[in-house]
């Protein structure tokens, strides 16, 4: 007699989905719609620049407009690459970065935005980021 193998139910894999959004794409999207679709699908978003405080404020405003029973909001954090090393060499590079930032409008660093139902908290050290998952 042959025993039928019991089908084991596949456990959902633990993991996190990451989406990369170029800063240039974000800048063109006045309402930041490019962020909220992936956020509502539980993606962690990485932007290849440290976004400006005014942009952060606008994102918080738009987050509040998008909050509902399923989408509770975001965790957001940024690392500023210019402040990581305060040596003179970096200071000179920092000056050129500041000039290019004024011209191009882009600050060196990264910004991470994650949905609050996936990310419990983002704890910041000056040059490191700890992401606490739920």
């Amino acid at each position, binding site marked *: 007699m042959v025993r039928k193998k019991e089908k084991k139910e596949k456990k959902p894999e633990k993991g996190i989905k990451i989406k990369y959004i170029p800063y240039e794409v974000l800048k063109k999207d006045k309402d930041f719609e490019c962020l909220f679709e992936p956020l509502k699908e539980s993606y962690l978003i990485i932007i290849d620049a440290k976004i*400006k*405080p*005014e942009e*952060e*404020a606008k994102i*918080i*405003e738009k*987050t*509040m*407009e998008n*909050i509902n*029973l399923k989408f*509770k*909001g*975001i*965790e*957001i*954090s*940024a690392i500023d690459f210019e402040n990581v090393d305060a040596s003179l060499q970096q200071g000179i590079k920092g000056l050129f970065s500041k000039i290019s930032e004024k011209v191009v409008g882009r600050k060196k660093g990264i910004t991470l935005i994650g949905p*609050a139902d996936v990310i419990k908290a*983002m*704890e*910041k050290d000056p040059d490191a980021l700890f992401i606490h998952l739920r």
Partner: protein
Amino acid sequence: MPIKRIFSFFKRLFRKKKNVKLGLYGPPNSGKTTLANRICLDWLGEELGEVSHIPHETREVKVKEKVVIEGKGKKRIEFSIVDTPGIATKIDYEDFLKHGLSEEEAKKRAKEATKGVIEAIKWIDNVDAVLVVLDATKNPINQVNITILGNLEARKIPFLIVANKIDLKKADVERVKEAFPNYKVVGISAKHGINMDELYEKILEML
């Protein structure tokens, strides 16, 4: 929008001092309304708003006009105090259930809180100076605080960091000062009126 910001800057620069608007900004539950009430009680004899241990008690901007404070050197200034909802990046109605609210009340509060955050952010362009009120018992380095300070700097709005709740054992004003070494920090207890004289002197210097 840069043109709007330039206009706001000049509007603040040339506005007569008696029309000064002092905003209270910070994360939820940091004691902004308690501080607003303390200032209004000290100088007007009446409170501004209700306080609660439940976050997002203040869900709309509240303004009290004609607050006059006087310093040791007989310097005096009249201003309007603007109490704003706490700025947050997430609001979950289930958090309010833990504080004993019904589901209907919790959902209503959450919806009002989201509108309050939007209103608080929009009001940044209408204030002349800000007290950034932080809870001195908590880690001051978080993105909400950095966003608030960054927006004030970008708009060239003068501000003072107020490390509140120094009456509590876990309060650590030095941690707040170390987190923001380039800014003025004053430690107070708005609830118990501790160190308010120093705060008033710093407000007079700022305005």
